[in-house]
């Protein structure tokens, strides 16, 4: 479905909801619950946390939807609420990774050029075990990112928001989005490559 059609359906459902339709509420949930759950899961790592994020997101969304003027897309607005929920959830946890990522640490020093073993995932169904193991490695690598990098990486590379949309959702500059995304990607490449080299995936 193209973007314009999506926005048109969302607009219709928002109007219906404002007019008191419970069915419109159900349809909005149906359209976005998978993405919000997945985002919560990618941010927090546990299904229970993802459920809390999804519940808080939709509850707040429907609480304020009557005042929503559609100056932004419904999807972006929902992710803004979900991001706030993730940040609140994080404040309650104490052992979240919280490290800065330095660009210099990934730039080859002394003329050495490291090689990165990033596996190709084939479409062969017999690779399902490899896929599952790789998924575990990738998920663990994403979760080991500090919160601010994880937010940007998930919004940009996993959810597919543009640099500008991500900046708007997070309330930061586009330059900060680009900087954090680049560092997150460099970090993930190293983590995934190291795990692969260490033979976690055979």
């Amino acid at each position, binding site marked *: 479905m193209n973007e314009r059609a999506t926005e048109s359906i969302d607009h219709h459902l928002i109007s219906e909801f404002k007019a008191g339709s419970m069915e419109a509420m159900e349809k909005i949930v149906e359209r976005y619950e998978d993405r919000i759950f997945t985002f919560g899961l990618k941010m927090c790592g546990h299904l229970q946390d993802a459920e809390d994020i999804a*519940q808080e997101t939709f509850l707040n969304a429907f609480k304020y939807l009557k005042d929503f003027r559609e100056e932004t897309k419904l999807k972006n607005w929902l992710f803004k609420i979900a991001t706030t929920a993730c940040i609140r959830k994080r404040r309650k946890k104490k052992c979240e990774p919280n490290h800065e990522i330095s660009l210099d640490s990934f730039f080859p020093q002394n003329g050495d050029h490291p090689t990165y073993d990033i596996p190709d995932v084939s479409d062969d169904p017999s690779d399902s075990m490899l896929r599952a193991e790789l998924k575990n490695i990738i998920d663990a690598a994403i979760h080991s990112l500090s919160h601010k990098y994880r937010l940007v990486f998930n919004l940009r590379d996993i959810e597919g928001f543009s640099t500008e949309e991500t900046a708007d959702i997070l309330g930061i500059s586009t330059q900060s989005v680009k900087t954090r995304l680049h560092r997150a990607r460099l970090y993930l490449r190293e983590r995934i490559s190291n795990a692969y080299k260490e033979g976690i995936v055979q």
Partner: protein
Amino acid sequence: MREDCRKDFERLSEYLDGELDDAVCREIERHFHQCPECRECVDSMRKTIQLCKEAAIEEIPAVAKERLRAMLRGCLARNHHLS
């Protein structure tokens, strides 16, 4: 050449995301053509992003979705928001 490597290393993501001018992209590609290390660097970065995207799909249990809906129905009905 090291200076070029450093410059392109810093803007690798912007290059991959198509956020640079055509002229800058051509300049970077000329460098990649001459520098196998940087070519390897951009290829592994591209593969990393693709791999993460492919691994992103999650199966959300139906029971979790049903709990979400039940909670929303209950809260909205209690708030008399809907008729």
